[in-house]
C-alpha cells in the first residue's frame, strides 16, 4: 500500500548533462494517492514506459526523487520497493507449474511451505486459476499466462503498487474485456495502487480513475476520463482521446462568437482577452457535431465517407479545405453529399497555441 510522490523528476538516457530538450522525461512533480487506478497514456516514445520503469526502479532517474509514503526510495532496488509489474508479453517460468510460478516470489523471500501454499491457493482462487494449478504454465493460453504474471505480483502480501506495461497487447479482443473487468474487480477488492501504461485510449479510459496523457516526455493533462473527453486542456489531448479524435479547426474568435470560414459559431463563454499573435483554433468533438439536411443557418459541408461501426456511424465531411468528423444520429439517411453542421455551443472550446483558453462567464 503506498502513496507515490514524484518530486522534480526528470530523466535522460544520455546522462543528466544532456540538453534538457532531449530529455526522455522532462521535469515533473506529481502525487499518486494510495489505492488509485492510474493510466499513463501516450504515443510510442512519449516517455510513459521510462516513467514506469523509474517508478519500479528498473531505471534510475537522472534527477529528482520518488517517495513511497513519504519515504525516499530513489536509491532502492526494485526488490526493496515492493513493486509488482506485468509486462507486455507474459513472463512465465517455463519449467514450473502454475502453482510453482505463483509460489516463486514467496520462495525467494524465504517464506515457509504452508504459508506459501495457503497464499498461492488464495491468489489462484482470486484469479480463477485454481483448476490449472498443477499444469505446466507454458501450456496455457496468453490470457491465462498474463494472469499468472499478475498473480506473481499479488501473491506477495507486502506489495505496494502494481505496474502494468501494455498488458493486453497479445490478448484477443473478447478476452480483453474479461481480463480488464477482472483487473478492475481486483483493484476494488484489494485497495492497491495500480499504474497502467498504454497507447490504447479505450484501455486507459476504462481502466483508470485518473488518466495522465503524455507527449514528448511531458504530462499534457491529467484528469478523469470525463475531463479529458469533455474538456481537453491541449489540442493533443483532444486528438489523442476519442475515436475519432476532436475536430480542431482554425478560426477567429471574438467575444462569444467564433468564425469558421466566414460562418458564425456561437460560444457559451466570452473570449475577450485572447493572447495577441497566438494561433487560435476551436475544438469540438464529433459527438457534439449535429449532422442535418443543409439549411441557411447551418455550416455547409460535403460528405466524403461514412464509417459504420455497427453501433454508431461517423460521417467524414469536408468544409472547404477542412476535414471534420461528425456522429450521425441513429436512423438518419442521406439524400445527397451536401449536409449542414451544427455545433453544440456548450462543447466548443477555444485553443490559443494549442492550449485551452478558459472563457469568461
Amino acid at each position, binding site marked *: 500500500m503506498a502513496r507515490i510522490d514524484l518530486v522534480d523528476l526528470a530523466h535522460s538516457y544520455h546522462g543528466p548533462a544532456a540538453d534538457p530538450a532531449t530529455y526522455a522525461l522532462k521535469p515533473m512533480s506529481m502525487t499518486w494517492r494510495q489505492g488509485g487506478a492510474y493510466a499513463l497514456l501516450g*504515443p*510510442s*516514445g512519449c516517455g510513459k514506459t521510462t516513467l514506469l520503469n523509474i517508478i519500479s526502479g528498473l531505471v534510475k532517474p537522472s534527477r529528482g526523487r520518488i517517495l513511497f509514503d513519504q519515504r525516499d526510495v530513489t536509491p532502492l532496488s526494485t526488490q526493496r520497493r515492493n513493486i509488482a509489474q506485468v509486462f507486455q508479453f507474459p513472463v512465465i517460468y517455463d519449467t514450473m507449474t502454475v502453482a510453482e510460478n505463483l509460489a516463486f516470489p514467496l520462495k525467494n523471500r524465504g517464506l515457509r511451505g504452508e504459508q506459501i501454499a495457503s497464499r498461492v491457493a488464495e491468489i489462484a482462487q482470486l484469479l480463477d486459476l485454481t483448476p490449472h494449478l498443477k499444469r505446466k504454465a507454458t501450456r496455457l493460453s*496468453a490470457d491465462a499466462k498474463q494472469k499468472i504474471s499478475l498473480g506473481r505480483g499479488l501473491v506477495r502480501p507486502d506489495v505496494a503498487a502494481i505496474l502494468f506495461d501494455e498488458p493486453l497487447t497479445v490478448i*484477443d*479482443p*473478447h478476452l480483453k*474485456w*474479461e481480463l*480488464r*473487468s477482472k483487473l*478492475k*474487480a481486483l483493484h*476494488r477488492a484489494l485497495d492497491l495502487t495500480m499504474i497502467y501504461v498504454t*497507447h*490504447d*485510449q*479505450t484501455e486507459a*479510459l*476504462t*481502466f483508470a480513475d485518473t488518466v495522465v496523457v503524455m507527449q514528448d516526455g511531458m504530462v499534457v493533462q491529467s484528469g*478523469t*476520463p*470525463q475531463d*479529458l*473527453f*469533455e474538456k481537453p486542456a491541449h489540442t493533443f489531448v483532444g*486528438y*489523442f*482521446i*476519442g*475515436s*475519432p*479524435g476532436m475536430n480542431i479547426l482554425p478560426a477567429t474568435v471574438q467575444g462569444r462568437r467564433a468564425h469558421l470560414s466566414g460562418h458564425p459559431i456561437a460560444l457559451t463563454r466570452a473570449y475577450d482577452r485572447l493572447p495577441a499573435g497566438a494561433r487560435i483554433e476551436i475544438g469540438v*468533438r464529433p*459527438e457534439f457535431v449535429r449532422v442535418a439536411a443543409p439549411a441557411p443557418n447551418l455550416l455547409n459541408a460535403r460528405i466524403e465517407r461514412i*464509417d*459504420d*461501426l*455497427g*453501433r*454508431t456511424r461517423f460521417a*467524414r465531411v469536408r468544409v472547404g479545405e477542412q476535414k471534420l468528423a461528425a456522429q450521425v444520429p441513429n*436512423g438518419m439517411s442521406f439524400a445527397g453529399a451536401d449536409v449542414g453542421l451544427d455545433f453544440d455551443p456548450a462543447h466548443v472550446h477555444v485553443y490559443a497555441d494549442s492550449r485551452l483558453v478558459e472563457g469568461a462567464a
Partner: protein
Amino acid sequence: MSVTLDHVTRFVSGVPYLHKTSLTLDRGTLNVLLGPTLAGKTSLMRLLAGLDRPDTGRVLVDDKDVTGIDVRKRSVAMVYQQFINYPSLTVYENIASPLRVAGKHRDIDARVQSVAKLLGLEPYLDRTPLQLSGGQQQRTAIARALVKGADLVLLDEPLANLDYKLREELRAELPRIFEASGAIFVYATTEPTEALLLGGRTICMWEGEILQTGDTASVYRHPQSLRVAEVFSDPPLNRVGVEKKDGSIHYASGERAPANGLYRDLADGGYEVGFRAHQLAAASGKNERHSFATTVLLTEITGSESFVHLKCDGFNWVAVMPGVVEYAPGDRLDAEIDPADLYVFDPSGRLVAAPATM
C-alpha cells in the same frame, strides 16, 4: 483474376490447422479474415500465397491448378504484423526492391513515386526504415507489397503492432489505397471494429473453419450462427436462454414477457438469444420492451460512452450507453432489450430471427 481454394485442408504434425475449406476471391475485392487467435487465418493466407501446400484439395488461379507451385512464381505480396523492411536500404530502395528483384527495371522511378504518394511516404524516401516511426515503417512495407502490382496482396494483422492512433489513421486510408490498386486483398484481423471500418467482404473464421462469408455489414447484421455473432461483437455478445410457451417468453434469468417483436412468429420451444452491448439499454418504461432486474458490476467510462457491466441472475452482460453514466458497483438497474432488435438462435446455434436491416 480470381483465386479459389477447393476443399483444402491443412495439418501441422497431425493437428488440423484448417478443416475442409472452399473459398473464391475475386479481382478488386477486399476480403477481411475475421477470427480470434488460432482460428486458421494465417494458415489460410499461407495456402493462398503458396507458402504452404494443402494436405488435400487444390488451389486454383483463374481456374488453373497452381497447387504446389512455388510462391516465387505466383503474383503474391505479403505484409506481416512485424515491420519487415531492409534496414540498410532507404525507403526509396526498399520500395524499389521488388521491382529490381523481378528484373522490371523500366520506369522504376515512376512506380515508386506513385506508390509513395499513395501512402504519404514522399517526404521520407531518403531515410532508412530505422529513422521512421512504426506507422511509417509499416507504410513502407505496404508500399513494397503494392509496387510490383501483385494480383494477390495478403496482410496478416498489419496494424497490430501500431499505436492506437496510428492504427486509426492507417485504417481510414487503407480502403482508398486498396481501391486504387485493383488487386485481391486479404486482410486478417482479430478485431470486429477493424472489419467494420474496412468494409468489403468478411470471412468469419473459428478454429480452422470458415463460418460465414459475405458483405461485411451483412455478416455483422445477419450472423448465421451464434458463433459468428460472438466473433463479430466487441464488446462481447450478451446471451440468455429463453423458452417460448403459451404465447409468452420465459427468460432463463427468471423474467417473463409477452412474445412480441421477433418472438411472435417463433414456434414454441427453447432458444438462445444474443444481443450486442448497444442493444441493451437502461429502462425507458416503454411497455413493448423486455425488462430485466440487474446488478451493476462495474462501469467503465470513456467520456464518449460508458460500458456498464451487469449481472442478471448468473448472466454477465455489457451495455454500452452514450455519454457518461455513473452507476456504482452493486447498484440495481432495470435494463431492457427491444424484442424486435435482437438475435434468436435455435439450440444448435443457427440463426432463426434477426432484426430487420436498418
